[in-house]
């Protein structure tokens, strides 16, 4: 789960990370009032779950409250990578001497959280990694022992020469690590971590990604979810316990299991079609899940054909068949449907479908070919 910059900053502040004050505005008038309160130059920053906000024009300096209002009115409502900006963070502009990067990322290769620091901060760390990999220090951390002082010191010396700054940075890294562990993160980063002309070390931007599997034991973090910052269809799917990702094609896919769902999308493409979505109804299906899945798929006006691909293991194919029948009785389909199912209770499922006027195949390739043909306005083989 992604959280906003202002939320990540709040979590880091709780651990003691030095962060300039800031407040969130939902309207231009609010932005102006906040800017007036802080006085001087402020930064107005779009709060969306997308990288590259600066490049997209979503981060701007304002020298006066009036200018803050004007800038906020432009940024609010702006589209960044398909997401609408609903909130801006208004924060006093800082004087910057140096910019560094500090992050903790769950790393598959070492099976540990890995600290990454770089004195080349303020830009995308992947860009630094690609162009100047020697400017990045990586350090895997054994979570059974945590970040040790000597490790924090080593990371600090990679960033700064001044011992005082190294010590301050070491403290910030400890706090970053605590926030990463405490909140169940898969990523926590400060970029940039700046030094001011006065020698202070301050975090100017923060990003955190929470492991979805942690949300059950962190209800306070789960409550940070901003549904207005996500595609409505994906919110609807999650609330129905489905995994859904909207894509740009016209073949709506309903599949059980993530790997098979991806393989089905790939097969649609292989046979000349374009998948409209990734949708995994999960393992233990019930008819209700299928009803919800069909609601979400049919709400997408691009969808010209619907493809079911179900390999019943834990999933009972008769549950899926009943779901299809119920859903289409509630609201008849306006586009053709192709059903492929095989596995647990296949005979019962086929009977249910036939009695209700549906045909089904047990062959994946055949079903995908038919769905692609139908989506193009042609006929099934």
């Amino acid at each position, binding site marked *: 789960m992604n959280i906003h910059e202002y939320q990540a900053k709040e979590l880091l502040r709780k651990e003691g990370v030095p962060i300039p004050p800031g407040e969130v505005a939902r309207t231009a008038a609010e932005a102006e009032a906040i800017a007036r309160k802080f006085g001087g130059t402020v930064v107005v920053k779009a709060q969306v779950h997308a990288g590259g906000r600066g490049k997209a024009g979503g981060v701007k300096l304002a020298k006066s409250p009036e200018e803050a209002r004007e800038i906020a009115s432009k940024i609010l409502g702006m589209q960044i990578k398909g997401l609408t900006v609903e909130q801006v963070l208004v924060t006093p502009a800082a004087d910057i001497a140096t910019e560094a990067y500090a992050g903790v990322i*769950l790393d*598959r*290769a070492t*099976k*540990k*959280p890995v600290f990454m620091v770089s004195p080349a901060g303020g830009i995308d760390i*992947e860009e630094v990694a690609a162009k100047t990999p020697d400017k990045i220090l990586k350090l895997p951390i*054994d*979570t*059974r022992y945590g970040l040790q002082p000597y490790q924090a010191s080593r990371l600090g010396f990679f960033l700064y020469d001044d011992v005082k700054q190294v010590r301050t940075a070491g403290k910030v890294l400890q706090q970053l690590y605590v926030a990463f*562990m405490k909140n*169940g993160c*898969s990523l926590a980063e400060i970029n940039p971590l700046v030094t001011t002309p006065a020698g202070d070390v301050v975090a100017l931007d923060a990003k955190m990604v929470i*492991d*979805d*599997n*942690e949300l*059950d*034991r962190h209800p306070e973090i789960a409550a940070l979810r901003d549904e207005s910052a996500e595609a409505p269809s994906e919110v609807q799917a999650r609330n129905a316990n489905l*995994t859904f*990702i909207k*894509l740009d094609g016209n073949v709506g896919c309903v*599949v*059980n*299991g*993530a*790997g*098979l*769902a*991806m*393989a089905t*999308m*790939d*097969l*649609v*493409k*292989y046979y000349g079609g374009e*998948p409209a979505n*990734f949708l*995994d109804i999960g*393992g*233990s299906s019930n008819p209700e899940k299928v009803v919800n899945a069909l609601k979400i798929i049919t709400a997408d006006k691009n969808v010209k054909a619907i493809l079911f691909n179900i*390999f019943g*293991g*834990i*999933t009972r194919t008769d549950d899926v068949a009943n779901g299809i029948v119920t859903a289409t009785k509630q609201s008849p389909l306006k586009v053709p449907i192709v059903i492929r199912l*095989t*596995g*647990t209770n296949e005979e019962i499922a086929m009977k249910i479908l036939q009695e209700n006027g549906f045909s089904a195949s047990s062959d*994946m*390739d055949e079903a995908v070919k038919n769905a692609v043909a139908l989506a193009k306005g042609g006929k099934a083989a």
Partner: protein
Amino acid sequence: MSIFVDKNTTVVVQGITGRDGSFHAKQMLEYGTRIVAGVTPGKGGQTFEDRTPIFNTVADAVAATGANTSVIYVPPMFAADAIMEAADAGFRLIVAITEGLPVLDMTRVYPFVMEKGARLIGPNCPGLITPGQSKVGIIPGRICAPGGVGVVSRSGTLTYEVVYQLTRAGLGQSTCVGIGGDPINGTNFIDCLAAFEADPATKAVAMMGEIGGTDEQDAAAFVKQNMKKPVVGFIAGQTAPAGRRMGHAGAIISGSAGTAAEKIAAFEAAGMGVAKRPIDFVELLKKKL
């Protein structure tokens, strides 16, 4: 022969009285797996299906039965503890089916299991099956047949799909292993490939990977350097967009790393067969067998 499980595998089911645990314990018993005990704290002394004794702790179950393998169906928030309990009890093989285990839990569990010298398969995996001998997990037994193809995969239902198509085409399997779709898991492709290479019953390997991470690229390098047996690979997620998690916690393309194209190129560079569709496994494997 086979890898990891065979007819001598004796299994303890952790979470045997739960919804998933009881359903799959029954399926495993029907398949002929030697389930010798179950564990559910507080239900020690009872029996499962009138024949399998239930114990309060894994240590009790091992002391009473001498079982060598554990399969875990406990809920995600308790799964890390269950895996550590199993490793501490001295099992050789631990199969964690549970989905939704926090990844940070695995950063503690993995080194613990390694220090105990156990093999962990999963979490968030369908387990494994040696057709005709033993099924430990949830892979449907009726889609499998004994034979010479070793199967290893990061996914569940996609594995079933491929195994089903292999069986229909007359290509049986030595062992099918689902290693799971989480970012941190106990057993990776290379572990399975090495075991298949050493297993006399395995004549060729079918490997199903997906987008995200570098496990498939590492596996391809291993195939090139260490394997004489033919390996055919498939990557799911060729049409997946970057930066979006495709269901599995591990299936995410970050930056330029972990794309299907990158993985397929690694397969080709290693001289492996590349299945563009699941059905392509059949012809590619037939050619190599």
